[in-house]
């Protein structure tokens, strides 16, 4: 395996730094939207429900978008350390992405679109007067631009991997898994890159299909789409896309943690096997979003339940366990980047537990579309993907003279963990109290939990502000 010095600056790093700044600022802004929503649910604000649902839509799309953007920047940065990638393509990706963001924001805050980020057909066309068809079209077109940007992004990575390894299957390492030689197996980052590009490209293509159908329906309402098919497609896309964000960001752990432990992350058969499983599971698991759609065949529901569980095995048995082995006795000195990256894996690993449990049909009967659901995904996004993203950002601008955590770093980190964990756990508690998700107004009996969550959310927002400011200071110092 080649040893590459990942700290050597390379062309295009400036774009990555800019992306992480954008991502960080949008994360922060969207958290403020989240805070406002939770305060509204706690009865501390009195927003017009239309505005609440616009904020919900913006928060969902904005957070998933920022997670995707930061994950993509991480993947590009490290993939580019192993194979040449053309910055021009990244620039085009970023441009298309931002164009999509402008359309989405315009649709929501000018056009009043509030149909949620995983919109269900035919809601975009039937707003009951809240928004016009053009706003829905703008929102959906925004997705289309982002999707095209991502297709370009993956195409470039795919081309370069194929050039380097002589085929996508080789870049995936699958030959090694099935008895091939260990010679020239790709490093972990490239296996991850190849795997994500395979499943996320498929996901985006399905997304594009439902997007195209929805746009046609908005223009000619007589063009009907089967709502069950549309729901399958949107959740297949949504599930694959949000998962891809973490599977891209994890490459920061593969590359950066070894610089602390002195133990390179290795491509073993187990590692390749885990990624092989991920490629299959990520695509087969989305049925767990349809467990209350009793009209789909029973086998699909069973697949949803069983694969939900199975998805936890490579994560906990391979990724988390490997991290534990790499850390133990390594003499690693904790600083902010290392702490955030490890937090990312921990948050991800424990966040999937409530997801897996909710993936059981019997449990889902009671938890589906309650706040249990934001409970699990805020755990593995807020304390998972986003922690990895801020860890990577902090590492990008690290001060090589500083080897330990300053008192301020410690405070920010603890506030982020404590606030985030408290905030996410309350969602689980609210879900167990049967409080539905996506409700603009909560009954009085539910408000205490929302209020408590609002307090935790304030802590998270302040900690995140600290992380963003620290990053900006680092950028200025290194510039």
């Amino acid at each position: 395996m080649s040893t590459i010095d990942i700290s050597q600056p390379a062309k295009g790093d400036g774009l990555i730094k800019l992306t992480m700044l954008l991502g960080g600022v949008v994360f922060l802004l969207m958290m403020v939207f989240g805070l406002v929503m939770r305060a509204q649910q706690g009865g501390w604000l009195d927003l017009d429900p239309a505005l609440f649902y616009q904020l919900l839509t913006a928060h969902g799309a904005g957070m998933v978008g920022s997670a995707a953007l930061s994950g993509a920047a991480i993947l590009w940065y490290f993939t580019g350390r192993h194979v040449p990638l053309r910055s021009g393509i990244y620039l085009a990706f970023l441009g298309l992405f931002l164009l999509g963001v402008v359309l989405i924001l315009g649709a929501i805050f000018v056009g009043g679109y509030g149909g949620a980020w995983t919109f269900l057909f035919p809601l975009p066309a039937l707003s009951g007067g809240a928004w016009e068809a053009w706003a829905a079209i703008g929102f959906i077109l925004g997705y289309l631009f982002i999707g095209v940007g991502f297709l370009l992004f993956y195409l470039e990575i795919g081309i370069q991997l194929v050039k380097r390894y002589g085929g996508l299957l080789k870049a995936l390492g699958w030959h090694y898994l099935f008895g091939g030689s260990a010679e020239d197996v790709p490093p972990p980052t490239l296996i991850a890159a190849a795997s994500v590009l395979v499943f996320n490209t498929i996901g985006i293509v399905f997304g594009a299909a439902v997007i195209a159908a929805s746009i046609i329906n908005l223009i000619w309402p007589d063009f009907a789409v089967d709502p069950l098919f549309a729901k399958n497609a949107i959740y297949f896309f949504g599930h694959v896309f949000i998962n891809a964000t973490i599977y891209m960001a994890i490459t920061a752990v593969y590359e950066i943690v070894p610089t602390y432990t002195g133990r390179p992350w290795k491509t073993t058969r187990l590692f390749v096997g885990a990624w092989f499983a991920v490629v299959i599971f990520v695509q087969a698991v989305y049925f767990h979003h349809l467990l209350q759609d009793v009209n789909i065949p029973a086998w699909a529901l069973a697949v949803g339940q069983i694969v939900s569980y199975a998805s936890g095995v490579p994560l906990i048995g391979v990724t988390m366990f490997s991290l534990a082995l790499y850390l133990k006795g390594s003499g690693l000195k904790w600083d902010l980047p290392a702490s955030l990256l490890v937090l990312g894996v921990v948050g991800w690993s424990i966040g999937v537990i409530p997801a897996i449990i909710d993936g059981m049909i019997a449990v889902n009967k009671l938890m589906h579309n309650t706040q249990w659901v934001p409970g699990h995904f805020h755990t593995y996004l807020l304390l998972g993907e986003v922690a990895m993203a801020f860890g990577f950002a902090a590492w990008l601008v690290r001060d090589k003279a500083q080897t330990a955590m300053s008192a301020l770093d410690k405070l920010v980190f603890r506030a982020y963990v404590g606030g985030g964990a408290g905030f996410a756990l309350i969602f689980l508690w609210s879900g167990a109290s049967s409080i539905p998700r996506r409700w603009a107004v909560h009954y009085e009996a539910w408000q205490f939990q929302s209020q408590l969550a609002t307090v935790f959310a304030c802590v998270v927002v302040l900690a995140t502000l600290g992380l963003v400011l620290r990053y900006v200071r680092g950028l200025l110092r290194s510039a």
Partner: protein
Amino acid sequence: MQTLILIVTLLVMMGVLALIMRAVLATEGPEPSANAPKTRSKVIWSMVVLGLVVSVTSLREWPHTQAGGDALVVNIESGQWWWDTDTTEIPLGQQVEFRVTTEDVNQGLGIYNSDMQLLVQVQAMPSYTNKVVYTFEEPGTYQILCMEFCGIAHHAMTYEFDVVEAGA
């Protein structure tokens, strides 16, 4: 039931957390023992076995109950932003098959007891009929809440019905 689910979930989360924290807190300690790969295999295989057991036990009796021959059929229609049923009085202890439809967008039928605890739910989808079977064991007033985001009045889409003793 929900409380039990919450407790089990928190326990498993704590277990996984403990597993990783042992390493996180031991960076200065001894290196992993030579047995670590064996321990890992054990962890993976136990997860697989546990998964098989849980899957079989939880799916053997299909969790979406099928209606028996003497089930009472209750039709529930819905739309933006209302529910309507054949009857607002349902006999106690009688198996009921709800047949749920919607005339415009997706809705979610959630049935809550008077303690506002969710008892059962099913999706409502345009051009489909979704069935859910339930037997009420307690008399009283029940509520339907909408579980699927359906537009600006989603949170106001509620409905009430009573469960009454037969002959009452």
